[in-house]
């Protein structure tokens, strides 16, 4: 590897502000990359990565080539994401993830994923502490509004296998197990899916099943309650023309057990007196959704993705989702994506803006109220090998920046913040490295 300059990470002095932060965030990743490079001298992408100019826009760039059809195994890859969420309800969430995929034979691959959610919220807990509306004890850990007060950890392992012989030749299956735990909740999930290709690989049929067992043990209560979910799904993907691909998705979800939110409080004004109740919802919910997606290639460089979804459930919530995503390659160096998503939903049959008397089912959950949301997305993918920048000088690297602006409006103000409108800002910075 010839290089007119020392290692890429020394090319640019530390920067202030956001760029500085990104630069700093890149250092551990750069270390990871160089470490892997030394292990794997023979890199799959053969080109050298001599930095010639900040943006070469030329032959060294590599577009990540994805496996378009389900019978291909995922590529060997390490992916790190730093994600954050902020909203006007004063909730902040930071959730870094790391995922590794590795093939271990022609037909098998394994993937590992780890995620941490750090939620900092002036949420229900402070509400209890301040208002003392229940006999709740304050949480043992965390506490203050400006400190991370809840941590969730999630670990998952997955296995993919291509079937190379027998009756189901050309099919593939995957199995995933996931365990998630936070101080008042735990969840174990098993997921399996089977894909089968037909019509010269123009058609992919996929059936899936997700099963999960959750336990809820809120610190403000003395009980532990269980929830079980099972979600069979069916997906059909059809290549319609060399530039158009369509997908039909159907999913069924049955949730049973304790489905409510133990931290939410229903206030009933009964004869001039305010009484507080726990939320109570039915102990079963059957949820169905059907979706259709189309992806159309516009010319050589851009693609337009249209997705529609209709959802309905046994609590009478129904919703309609439309989303559009336009993506365009900016030369070989980058890909830009602009997305818009619109969503509106109806109200659960037992949701009331105000309960005049105690009822069998009562909730204040905004998710069960009539409302709509709009989501604006901008994403930028930078392909390694095109830039004289730390990390990005390596053609096996891809950086992803994702930003979403989310607005949700509900007919009844949120029970806690008292706002009808939620504005959230989601930022994600990700790096993928193929080895």
């Amino acid at each position, binding site marked *: 590897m010839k290089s007119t300059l020392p290692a890429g990470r020394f090319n640019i002095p530390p920067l202030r502000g956001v760029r500085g932060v990104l630069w700093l965030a890149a250092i551990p990743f750069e270390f990871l990359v160089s470490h892997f490079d030394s292990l794997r001298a023979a890199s799959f992408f053969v080109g050298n990565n001599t930095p010639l100019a900040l943006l070469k826009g030329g032959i060294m760039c590599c577009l990540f080539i994805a496996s378009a059809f389900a019978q291909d195994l995922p590529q060997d890859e390490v992916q790190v994401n730093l994600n954050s969420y902020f909203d006007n309800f004063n909730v902040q969430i930071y959730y870094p993830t790391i995922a590794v995929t590795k093939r271990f034979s022609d037909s098998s691959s394994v993937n590992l994923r780890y995620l941490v959610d750090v939620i900092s919220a002036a949420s229900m807990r402070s509400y209890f502490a301040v208002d003392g509306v229940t006999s709740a004890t304050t949480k043992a850990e965390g506490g203050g509004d400006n400190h991370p007060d809840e941590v969730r950890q999630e670990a998952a392992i997955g296995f993919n296998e291509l079937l190379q012989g027998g009756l189901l030749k050309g099919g593939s299956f995957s199995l995933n197990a996931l365990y998630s735990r936070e101080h008042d909740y735990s969840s174990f999930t098993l997921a399996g899916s089977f894909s089968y290709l037909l019509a*010269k*690989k123009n058609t992919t049929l996929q059936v899936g099943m997700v099963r999960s067992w959750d336990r809820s043990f809120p610190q403000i209560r003395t009980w532990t309650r269980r929830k079980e979910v099972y979600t069979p799904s069916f997906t059909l993907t059809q290549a319609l023309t060399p530039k158009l691909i369509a997908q039909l998705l159907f999913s069924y979800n049955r949730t049973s057990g304790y489905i409510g939110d133990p931290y939410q409080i229903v206030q009933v004004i009964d004869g001039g007196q305010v009484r507080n109740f726990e939320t109570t919802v039915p102990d079963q919910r059957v949820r169905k959704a059907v979706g259709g997606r189309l992806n159309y290639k516009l010319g050589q460089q851009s693609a337009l993705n249209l997705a529609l979804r209709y959802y309905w459930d046994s609590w009478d919530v129904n919703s309609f989702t439309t989303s559009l995503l336009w993506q365009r390659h900016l030369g070989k160096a980058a890909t830009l994506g602009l997305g818009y998503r619109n969503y509106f939903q109806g109200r659960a049959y037992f949701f009331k803006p105000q309960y005049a008397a105690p009822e069998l089912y009562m909730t204040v959950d905004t998710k069960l109220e009539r409302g709509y949301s709009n989501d604006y997305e901008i994403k930028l993918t930078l392909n390694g090998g095109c830039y004289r920048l730390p990390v990005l000088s390596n053609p096996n690297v891809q950086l992803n920046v994702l930003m979403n602006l989310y607005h949700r409006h509900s007919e009844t103000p949120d029970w806690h913040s008292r706002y009808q409108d939620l504005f959230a800002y989601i930022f994600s910075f990700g790096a993928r490295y193929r080895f």
Partner: protein
Amino acid sequence: MKRNLLILSALALSALALSALALLCAIAFAGSNPMNTAAPTFSGKTAQGQIINLADYKGKVVLLDFWASWCGPCREEFPFLVKLHEKAKRGNFSVIAINVDTEIEKMKEFLSKLEVQPSFPVISDAQGKIPAMFDLKGMPTTILIDKKGVVRYRHTGFTEVEKEKLVEEVKSLLVE
């Protein structure tokens, strides 16, 4: 409830119809497999403008490789074919690669990054006329034609197993 049933049945029906359609297509596409029949004669042009006729290769064992720069296993197979060709070309063996990229630049870009350049012809067939003659099932497709011009082996996809099989098959065809 009634409405939900209606939606559900409509969806189930369309899903069923699509699946049935897919199955029909699968049957329709089963097509003729030209195994153990004479290979269709074709000619094509390389990036350098050289005309390649399959007919000129009679008396040689020919490995036809249908590939594209956008296909992952094809990119893995190509360097292996370069090696195989180097080893066996002194016998009566040749590789003919047929690239199906719609933009010839993409093929050139891929080739320019190879450590060892192929010494066999690489035909550019942007219209996909040659692969249509051979009724490909997937990419890459590797076809072995014996000295008499008969299609003897076909491989779809590329894995370590295919690699070993290909070497053995080339050997056996060369001693025929």
